């Protein structure tokens, strides 16, 4: 019995030992495999994380580039309204600036460069100078095309487009500018019809509505018609302006230096300086850069005229 049971227990022990060995082996293998896999996963995760960081950076840059294009597209889509928004904002700021200047809240003064009687063949040269100095101005133009038999029509066309397209103000100076007997001042109706004719001409061709005007020869030239005319001008939403500074290029031809000095030596601290010039004058063209520089040195900031400007009469 004793030996039988001892040999039986020996057998069981061997079976157990074998099972144990198998168990240990399987466990060790499993643990080893898991350990290896774990390390592999960890390594991969580190590598992937680096990749994610660089891909996220790429994505961020790409998103930024795309958003820029989106903004540009939106701007183009809303082109008309954004131009109007900036245009309106500019004139709101201009009003505020005028107030500060007039109320003495700043040492700055304002100069309004104005050019009368165009368009001319050489107007673009004036526009080039204004572009170069990044200075806005005001052009009081006549309706010339029909009168001059369309000879210079295409040049005028370019001038109008450039004046409007460069943010200058286009003003009304009547259609014909005809002074004297039977001219624009012969009756109120005649004068207003000239203004309306020129306004319609510019509106129809260039989609631009003029709302500032200058009397040909200046408002005193209207004589006794002045009061009834301005009464009518108010009804059709026009503001008008004369000038308190001039090169004198409408009269005797003087040298560019004299034209320049006529402006620069006679500013007399005027806070809102309206400078009369003509874009047909070679010598004004020569003097223009020095006039701009000289006025800037005297503390003048350049603005285009606008309906609500304090320089305008309404």
């Amino acid at each position: 019995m004793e030996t039988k049971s001892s040999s039986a227990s020996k057998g069981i022990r061997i079976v157990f030992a074998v099972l144990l060995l198998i168990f240990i082996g399987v466990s060790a293998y499993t643990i080893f495999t898991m350990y290896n896999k774990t390390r592999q996963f960890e390594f991969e995760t580190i590598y992937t994380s680096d990749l994610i960081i660089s891909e996220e950076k790429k994505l961020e840059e790409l998103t930024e580039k795309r958003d820029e294009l989106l903004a540009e597209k939106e701007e183009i889509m809303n082109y008309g309204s954004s131009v109007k928004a900036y245009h309106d904002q500019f004139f709101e700021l201009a009003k505020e600036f005028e107030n500060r200047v007039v109320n003495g809240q700043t040492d700055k003064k304002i100069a309004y460069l104005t050019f009368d009687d165009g368009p001319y063949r050489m107007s673009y040269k004036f526009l080039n100078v204004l572009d170069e100095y990044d200075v806005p101005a005001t052009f009081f133009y006549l309706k010339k095309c029909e009168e001059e038999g369309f000879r210079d029509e295409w040049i005028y066309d370019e001038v109008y487009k450039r004046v409007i397209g460069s943010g200058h103000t286009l003003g009304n100076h009547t259609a014909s500018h005809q002074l004297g007997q039977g001219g624009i001042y012969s009756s109120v109706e005649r004068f207003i019809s000239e203004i309306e004719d020129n306004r319609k001409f510019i509106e129809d061709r260039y989609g631009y509505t003029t709302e500032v005007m200058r009397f040909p020869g200046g408002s005193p030239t209207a004589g006794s018609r002045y009061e009834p005319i301005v009464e009518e001008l108010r009804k059709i939403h026009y503001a008008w302006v004369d000038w308190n500074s001039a090169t004198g290029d409408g009269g005797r031809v003087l040298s560019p230096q004299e034209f320049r000095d006529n402006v620069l030596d006679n500013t007399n601290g005027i806070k809102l300086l309206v400078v009369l010039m003509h874009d047909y004058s070679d010598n004004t063209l020569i003097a223009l850069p020095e006039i701009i520089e000289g006025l800037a040195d005297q503390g003048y900031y350049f603005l285009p005229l606008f309906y609500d400007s304090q320089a305008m009469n309404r």
Partner: protein
Amino acid sequence: MLRKTIILEIILAIVLGAVAYGFYVDYAKAFKENQAAADRLAEVRLEEAQTEKEYRELDEELSSLRESVDLKILEIWKRRVAQLQKELE
């Protein structure tokens, strides 16, 4: 004697099991993190591909749009507004 052996073997099995479980927990964690990272990478790449596609389409669209409008006047008003704002500061 036999009983002792069995008990010892059971203890050994438990210890081994515990060790294996410990490794398993690490393994599961690493696996999950690995999976999450892979998913995130796929997500970022997909988003990138989409953004890239949108960018290309927009670029193409804009090249013709840019020609259709003259942006000069907008730039001018923007610049003038900025200049006046500076003047008013």
